[in-house]
């Protein structure tokens, strides 16, 4: 490798690391994920609602809020949030899988009716 290429490679790696690394303030989106992983879902909902206030176009916040609403049994709210997330990020495989799993579970549960 030529000597002149080395600083460029190292520099680009460091810039990439800096860009991707967690910021000192993780922000409400990340804080909500941490709360949810620790089973503090009400707190997670507050964080993700705040994330949407900060950035209404956040597909991630809509997706995460949908999961939390599913957890609370608010099917209409979850459906609304998943659909908003898909409108914003129609190609996200995670949102697609989440929404499909939610929809199939809801349909299966309601089919067991009298």
């Amino acid at each position, binding site marked *: *490798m030529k000597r002149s290429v*080395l600083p460029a*490679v*190292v520099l*680009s*790696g*460091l810039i*990439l*690391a*800096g*860009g*991707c*690394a*967690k910021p000192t303030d993780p922000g409400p*989106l*990340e804080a*909500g*994920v941490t709360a*949810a*992983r620790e089973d503090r879902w009400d707190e997670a909902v507050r964080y993700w609602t705040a994330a949407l206030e900060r950035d209404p176009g956040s*597909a*991630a916040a809509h*997706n*995460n809020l949908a*999961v939390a609403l*599913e*957890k*609370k*049994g608010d*099917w*209409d709210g979850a459906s609304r949030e998943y659909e908003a997330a898909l409108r914003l990020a129609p190609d*996200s495989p*995670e*949102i697609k*899988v*989440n929404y499909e*799993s939610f929809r199939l*579970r*809801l349909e*299966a*549960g*309601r*089919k*067991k*009716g*009298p």
Partner: protein
Amino acid sequence: MRARALVIIAAGLAAGAACRSLDPVLVHVDMPGVSPFPPDAFAEVVVTDFRNEAPLADLDVGHELQAYLAEGLRRAFRGTVSLRPLPDTAAPAPAFWKDAAGGRERLVFITGSIRLTSEVRKALKGSKVPIDGPFDAAKRSVIEQLRWTLVVDLAIISGESGEAVFAKVFREDRDYIDLEKPADFAFSDTSAAFRERLFQTFLGAPTIEKRSLLRR
């Protein structure tokens, strides 16, 4: 040359590790059950006494079941839960239920009959089977078990129409080595299993689901 390669690898690893930290997070979520009934289908549930078709000397299982169901419903159901005595007739006409509802909307009655019975059952003890003669039953010993059976013929009746919106016969069996196992003990075992199945039918069974949480 070697030091230069190490620097490049370290920079690459640092970048990779930092970026990986924002991958989606897979979580296992305990989701509530999905009720087969439409949301807000019921605002009030009235649990009647259950007609006892096999009365026991020291335990009124019809009355006990009414109290047990109501107690569970008060915890699981957001609406009002109240009690009502046993109807005079075994299968009251729709007009009876409509009249009992008194015009209250989205009210349902949970009613029905109950039978808690026991029998001693005999069986060959499997552990005594000789290895050289699986059909030598004479060398086996006989064991006795007490089987208690709970049968609940349950109906959910709409207060608006007076008609049943759901009806099912539930059966629970429990076998006990102790031939003196009392009825109240067996009722406790079997009614707990029955109530769990009923609530799963009524309110849906909770499940653990996988979902992805996004971080960016």
